[in-house]
């Protein structure tokens, strides 16, 4: 099930028990899948119209009063357009849950204006903010539950894609890296290539890892469903166990996104460590395409181009 559907459904489910939950959107109830919430709880649903700053401000007030507001819009506008208000929410440590939809290049048709490629960078730089980036429906469900549990601002990155459900070997823990190639038999001390990824593009990362393993390059894929807070010790340990190359794959700018995050942590390692290859959008805007697949290809984010990029650096690192 698409992440956005799960998000809408889970908010609705939790609202049955938790009467504090209220939902606000800015003229995007259908796109963000809270139209069913609107029907079920018309008294707890508020459409702000096309007014994202005010939506966030009203949510701040609702949180001051004691409600648990969810605010939902496209990530380019939420937090893209209402950042100052969200910054105040973070500073005040208010219990507002922010859902940024259609993130990354997933919204191919609408083009650059509607493709959020900087929301992770923005949100992970805010104190008090928790940043979740679910990769499938199971994680989306978990993310919404976590968001309600946490007493403070939470950002949940959502996408338009229909994503397959991953095979999860363990429970999700806030801030904890999740190995997603559980079947792989490589020992930690034999990892040659380590891949970090986040969000639905983890599916590509898993395929890439499979391809590399078939070529006898011991590769491990790690999903970061939480980007803030993050267990830096666990990340450092994974990196120091890696012999040849650390890779990040993200549907976002590599600057200050997942690549930036791993680079920051990696740079703090005092012993010798493998070099880092950051794969993602590189200092350019998105654009329109007739399908998301075409766009991922154009931006070197399809399986084949990623394998190629890794092999190039890998063979240089090996020689």
């Amino acid at each position: 099930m698409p992440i956005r559907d799960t998000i809408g459904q889970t908010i609705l489910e939790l609202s049955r028990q938790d009467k504090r939950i209220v939902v606000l959107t800015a003229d995007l109830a259908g796109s963000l899948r809270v139209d069913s919430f609107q029907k079920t709880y018309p008294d707890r649903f508020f459409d702000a119209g096309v007014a994202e700053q005010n939506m966030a401000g009203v949510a701040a007030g609702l949180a001051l009063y004691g409600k648990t507001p969810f605010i939902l819009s496209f990530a380019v506008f939420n937090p893209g357009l209402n950042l100052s208000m969200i910054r105040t929410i973070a500073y005040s440590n208010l219990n507002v849950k922010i859902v940024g939809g259609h993130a990354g290049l997933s919204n191919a048709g609408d083009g650059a204006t509607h493709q959020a490629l900087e929301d992770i960078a923005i949100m992970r730089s805010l104190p008090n903010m928790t940043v979740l980036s679910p990769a499938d429906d199971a994680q989306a469900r978990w993310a919404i539950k976590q968001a309600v549990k946490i007493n403070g601002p939470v950002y949940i990155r959502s996408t338009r894609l229909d994503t397959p459900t991953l095979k999860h070997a363990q429970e999700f823990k806030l801030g904890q890296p999740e190995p997603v190639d559980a079947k792989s038999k490589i020992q930690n001390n034999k990892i040659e290539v380590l891949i970090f990824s986040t969000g639905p593009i983890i599916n590509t990362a898993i395929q890439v890892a499979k391809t590399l393993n078939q070529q006898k390059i011991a590769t491990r894929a790690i999903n970061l469903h939480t980007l803030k807070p993050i267990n830096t010790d666990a990340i450092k340990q994974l990196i120091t166990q890696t012999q040849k190359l650390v890779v990040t794959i993200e549907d976002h700018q590599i600057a200050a996104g997942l690549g930036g995050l791993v680079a920051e942590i990696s740079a703090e390692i005092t012993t010798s460590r493998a070099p880092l290859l950051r794969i993602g959008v590189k200092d350019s805007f998105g654009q329109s395409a007739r399908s998301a697949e075409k766009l991922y290809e154009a931006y070197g984010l399809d399986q084949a181009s990623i394998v190629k990029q890794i092999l190039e650096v890998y063979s240089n690192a090996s020689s």
Partner: protein
Amino acid sequence: MKLMTRPELKKQATKIRQHVWQMIYTAQSGHPAGSLGVTDILTTLYFTPILKYQAKNPQWPERDYFLLSNGHVCPALYATLAEAGFFSKSKLNTLRQLNSPLQGHPHVGSLPGVENTSGPLGQGLSQAVGVALGLKTDKKINHVFVLTSDGEHQEGQTWEAYMFAAKYALNNLTVIIDRNLVQIDGKTEEVMPLERLKLKLASFRWRVLETDGHDFKDLIDKLQKAKASQRPSVIIAHTIPGKGVSFIENDYRWHGKVPHEAEYYEGLEELMGKTQ
């Protein structure tokens, strides 16, 4: 330019609507309701002497500026620009295709005739104010027209821009509001009421005019009045979303919906019938 008669303007607008319908169907995404609804406004601007421009010289310093704020209706702008000769009509079917200059929302610099980037609602009026302010500062007489939607009048920035333009008495600026009464989640008056819009605008110290957004005589009259006005002017254009394809008219669900095959041919037939 030879002056077009009203039947000729009508024919011209229908041609643009045919393009719009085909472009969105070919792209399999886009916004038919708003695009078809603003077509007569764009036709009036580009096919009467109201908007001064040279299609083959889009940067002509003496031109009037047309800025689009509600970027999602760009299929209508693209088709109008192509019909007006800014670029080849053969480009129209590349809408929303990879590497096409016809981006899903307009991008300044990608296509001749596109004066500003839009898509995020509520940002166009401020940009138009900036252009008008620059022109006025340099004592230029070029006029600035900006098309906005009613939905984006829910954004605070729109009103910040109205306030600014009034302060600096930008009489070289005309705002047109596509008052089609719909937005994504439903009717504007149910999602977030804008009324009493006319009074709001007047209290922001703007000259407020109203027009039937599909009546060329009325449109020409009000646009001329606004252009000649000594105060910043706003024209509330009452329009029908989806105008020209009767089964989608006035239905907010067609804001961003693509017709399926049978619907497409039914709509095309209706639009074709109008140019026979």
